[in-house]
């Protein structure tokens, strides 16, 4: 299998990288959700604190995933 042009290579690399990053974000935020929901089940009174922490941590994890998406976009451009 011979990849013919640089443009195709970089487009493919960018797209695959962005897809992997989205996968990573999905797994990460899923783990956060799992931990948060389990904590709420254990202690329903702490709902508001847990919700605030969950949203904060999700934004941080998404930040890391978006780094990778930006790099993927740069590879295409």
């Amino acid at each position, binding site marked *: *299998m011979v*990849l*013919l*042009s*640089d*443009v*195709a*290579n970089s*487009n*493919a690399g960018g*797209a695959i990288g962005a897809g992997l990053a989205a996968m990573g974000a999905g797994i990460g935020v899923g783990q956060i959700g799992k931990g948060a929901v389990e904590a709420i089940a254990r202690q329903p009174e702490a709902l508001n604190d847990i919700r*605030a922490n969950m*949203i*904060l941590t999700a*934004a*941080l994890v*998404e*930040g890391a995933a*978006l*780094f990778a*998406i*930006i790099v993927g976009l740069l590879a295409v451009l």
Partner: protein
Amino acid sequence: MTSGLMKSFTVAVFSIFLLLISMPSFANGGDGENGGKKKKAFDAQEIIFGHVLDGHEFHFFDITHDDGTKTPVGIPLPVILYSPQRGFDVFMSSKFHHGEHEYAGYRLLNAEYLEKLKDQGHDLKKEGLSAGKIIAVDGNDNLDKSVKFYDVSLTRNVVQMILALAFLVWIMITIAKRYEKGFGVKSAPTGMQNLLEPVITFVRDEVAKPNLGAKWEKYLPYLLTLFFFILINNIVGLIPGTANVTGNIAFTFVLGIISFIVILASSKKHYWGHIFNPPGMPLWVKFILVPVEFVSVFVKPMALIIRLFANMVAGHIIIICLISLIFIFSAMSKGVGIASSPLAVVFTIFIYFIEILVAFLQAYIFAMLTAVFVGQAFEGEHHDEAHAAH
């Protein structure tokens, strides 16, 4: 357990099935920059970058006439150029007629002229030439590289940012004056005060006080400014037809640098001591940890910058892509286009609500992380004192 065996068997069968039905295929490189797109067909990339990047006019929509020509509808903005050779040039961007005419020795690049430049042998990527940029041209309407000029125009990002700023300042000064006069101090606040007081107390009680301890009053004006400025620019950017201010790396870069300066200005010797000499670590760990800690001082504001920029620009691109789906399908056949419209609009509305949430969230995250980093920078040996002050 046989269920374990069944599970492994199922996984094996599916994996082999997927491998057998896979075909090699190549990413579309096409011929040249565009990937071989047809001339009159819908160019999604042009639409996306036209919306997400900066421009010299507010472009709302195009009116397509029966003979196929398009009249763009929008608001032109002033173009301000300074060149040491040619001096100041100030004129409205409508003089460029969307790149069809040159004016005062300058030209606005559009797809047609970019093709001409490519035919002349210019490497568009290396020279940084893209649609919407202004270039200097000589008498023969060719790119004149010897003229150096600075583009300090009022582009749409600048105009929108100034308008958002004016709106924010007006609202905040209005409610500050009302508080001074005594409304909403002893009794319940009303109107605009009522709208903003919970948000301001939220920033004070959830962002400033927990992270900054006893010094929260010093930093609260900066945190409030940061939060409301990012929030209002995020929200205004979501309105169709407006510019994408927070999704601009230059904008977020400046915000990040200012936060970085605030963090450095409030850092104490204790903080730098912890970076260059982390306590409680054996010597060999310190060799690895000290460079990592030093780099993290710079990486943390970089992460703030990229997080805000990437979230905003990704949201805008998703919304534009979903709407462009309708046009892409229409290019195949009218029926498919009409069928895909309800689906695309439903998805777009769903993503719009998520983007409104992301607008608030990213403003909160930026302000909160700045507060966290500032709190980390000035915390000292007096941990217990600060906690007792709560």
